[in-house]
C-alpha cells in the first residue's frame, strides 16, 4: 500500500541527486550521527537525573529546561538529515525490517518525550521517585530502540 510512496520518494530529483553523488550520502550520514550525539546528551542528562544519577543536586525541571533547546535542535538535525537519507534509498528501506522498527519506535519516542516526559519535567517539584524513574527508563529504552534499529538498517 505504501510502496508507491517509497518509489515516488526515491524517484524524486532530490533522491536521485543524493544517490548519484559519491560523497553526499556519507556527509549527510555523518551529520545525522552528530545529531545523535547531541540528542544523546540532551536526553540522557535529564533521564539519568530522573533515575537518581548524574547531576543529582539539580532539580529535574531545571535540567530539562536547560536541555530542551538542544533536544529540539538535535531532533531538527536528525529528522532533516534522516528525510534526505530516506529519499536517497526509499525502496531499499521499504524492504528493510530495521527501518520499520525504527520508524514505528520514533513517533512513540517523540510522543512520550513531548507529551508525557516533558509535561512531568516542567513540574518544579518533580523529584526522583517511582514516577520519574519510569519516565527515565522508558525514554532511554525508546530512544535506544530508535538508534539501534537505525544503525541496524545498514546491516540488514
Amino acid at each position, binding site marked *: 500500500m505504501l510502496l508507491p510512496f517509497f518509489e515516488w520518494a526515491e524517484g524524486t530529483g532530490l533522491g536521485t541527486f543524493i544517490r548519484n553523488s*559519491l*560523497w553526499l550520502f*556519507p556527509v549527510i*550520514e*555523518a551529520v545525522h*550521527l*552528530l545529531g*545523535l*550525539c*547531541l*540528542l*544523546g*546528551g*540532551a*536526553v*540522557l*542528562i535529564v533521564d*539519568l537525573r530522573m533515575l537518581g*544519577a*548524574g*547531576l*543529582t*543536586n*539539580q532539580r529535574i525541571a*531545571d*535540567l530539562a529546561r*536547560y*536541555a530542551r*533547546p*538542544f533536544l529540539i535542535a538535535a531532533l531538527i538535525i536528525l529528522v532533516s538529515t534522516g528525510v534526505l537519507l530516506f529519499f536517497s534509498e526509499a525502496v531499499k528501506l521499504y524492504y528493510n525490517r530495521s527501518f520499520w522498527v525504527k520508524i514505528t519506535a520514533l513517533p512513540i519516542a517523540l510522543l512520550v518525550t513531548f507529551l508525557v516526559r516533558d509535561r512531568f519535567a516542567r513540574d518544579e517539584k518533580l523529584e526522583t521517585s517511582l514516577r520519574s524513574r519510569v519516565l527515565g527508563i522508558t525514554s532511554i529504552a525508546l*530512544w*535506544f530502540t530508535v*538508534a*539501534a534499529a537505525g*544503525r*541496524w538498517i545498514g*546491516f540488514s
Partner: protein
Amino acid sequence: MLSFFEWLETTPWSIALLESLYVWPLLESTHVLSLALFVGTAIMMDLRLLGISFRSVPATAFTGRLLPWNHIGFAVMVITGLALFYASPIRYYYNIFFRAKMLLLILAGLNVWLFHSRIHRLVGDWDTDPVPPRAARFAAAVSIMAWAGVVVTGRMIAYNWFDCDLQPQPAFVNWAADCVIPER
C-alpha cells in the same frame, strides 16, 4: 608497528571476528550507540563551560557527577574500537580517515589533559560563574570541534575512496596514508 599489525591480522580471532555474521555488527553498533553517552555528555559539559546552557549548575557538578558517565561511555568506545581495529588492522593502518581520526583523538586527549591539569585546578574561582573564564570556554570549544571531527572521520573510515589499492590517488593521499606503490 606495521609488522605487529600484520601479525595481528593473521591471528585466528582476528579472522573470526572479521568474518563473523553478528559479532562484528554488534560491536560496531555498540561503538556507534556509545557516542550518545560519551560525546553526548561531553557536549553537555562543554555547553556549561561555554556559558551557553546549564548556567546555574556549578561546573564541579558536571566534573564530579556527570564525568563518571562520560568515562563509562569512553571505556565502551575504546574497548569496542580496539576490537574493531583488531578485526582488520592493516586496512585501518592505511586508511586516511582512520589516521585523521587518531590525530584528532590525540588533540582531544591533549585538550582534556590541559583542561584538568591547568584550568579545572582553579575551578574554585569560577565554579558558579554563569560564564566561565576564557581558558575554560576555549577548552570547551576545542573539545566540541575535536570530538565532532573524531565522529565524522570515524564514520568516513567505512569508505574506500582513498584506499591505497585504488590508484591513482593524489600525491597527498599516498603520502598521508603511507601507500606503498609498486614500481612500474
